[in-house]
């Protein structure tokens, strides 16, 4: 079975995100007011073959823990659906 996986990796709360801050400042300079914060993360899309959804879920979790996110500074979440 083929699955579509969407993964979001975000800097953890409390971790400085200078890129997000710079973008927030730029938007403010453009006269977009009322921006409380901007955080920049990563969005990954993956097509993955797997026996069933549960196995795919376990595999993706492992991928995130091992490579896709650095859990010292980043959180991750993902969704899986049949392709």
């Amino acid at each position, binding site marked *: 079975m083929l699955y579509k996986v969407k993964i979001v990796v975000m800097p953890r709360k409390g*971790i*400085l995100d*200078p*890129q997000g801050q710079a973008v927030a400042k730029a938007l403010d300079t453009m006269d977009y007011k009322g921006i409380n914060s901007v955080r920049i993360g*990563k969005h990954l899309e993956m097509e993955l073959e797997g026996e069933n959804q549960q196995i795919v879920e376990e595999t993706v979790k492992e991928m995130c823990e091992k*490579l896709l996110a*650095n859990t*010292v*500074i980043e959180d991750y979440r993902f969704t899986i659906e049949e392709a």
Partner: protein
Amino acid sequence: MKFGVIVFPGSNCDLDAYHLVKDVLRKPVEYIWHQQNSLKGYDCLILPGGFSYGDYLRCGAIARFSPIMQEVVEFANRGGLVLGICNGFQILTEAGLLPGVLLRNQDLKFYCQFVHLKVENVNTPFTNFIEPQKILKIPIAHGDGNYYIDEKGLNSLLEKKQVIFRYATAEGVVSDEANPNGALFNIAGVISEKGNVLGMMPHPERAGETLLGSTDGLFIFQSLLNYLEKL
């Protein structure tokens, strides 16, 4: 006594490190391609600076899964000396050989300049040749050198004297002004708990000849030679 310089695709300070060991220290040194999977006969490994795998995903994240890194981890676990410089430091944190992580510089700028380092612990294989209170002048060249670790981790580092270098002024005052990248506690270099793995953002291999503006990097390499000769 033999040095090895690990070469990843995208490493670019491998030549500098090799040159320093071969032509300045006059010790045997070999390049080790990242796809090799044997590390026999080496006394000290250098993970050089650069942009391994184009810094894709996160600095050092992909290099960490190169075949050679499995061997580097085992080498380190056996007590072998490993020096990670700049991108090498980033790879060592990703590989879990050193605690913490290197974030994007606080102001997002890439800095290529001399910094001054206060040496916090001279009782390590990498710093034993440095006089206490000596301030080292060594260049940095990075965009992601903003060291971060959680509070518990920092306390543990301090307790075990694992913070080795801190950004300071030429007079040795640790201050925000002397901190080029926003690193927590001005941390420029940390060592493993066992003391055989050092990671540092500044480039000691670029401060080994008068022509380059400083020879302070030699203190670190001389410490290594000292340590290895006494083994």
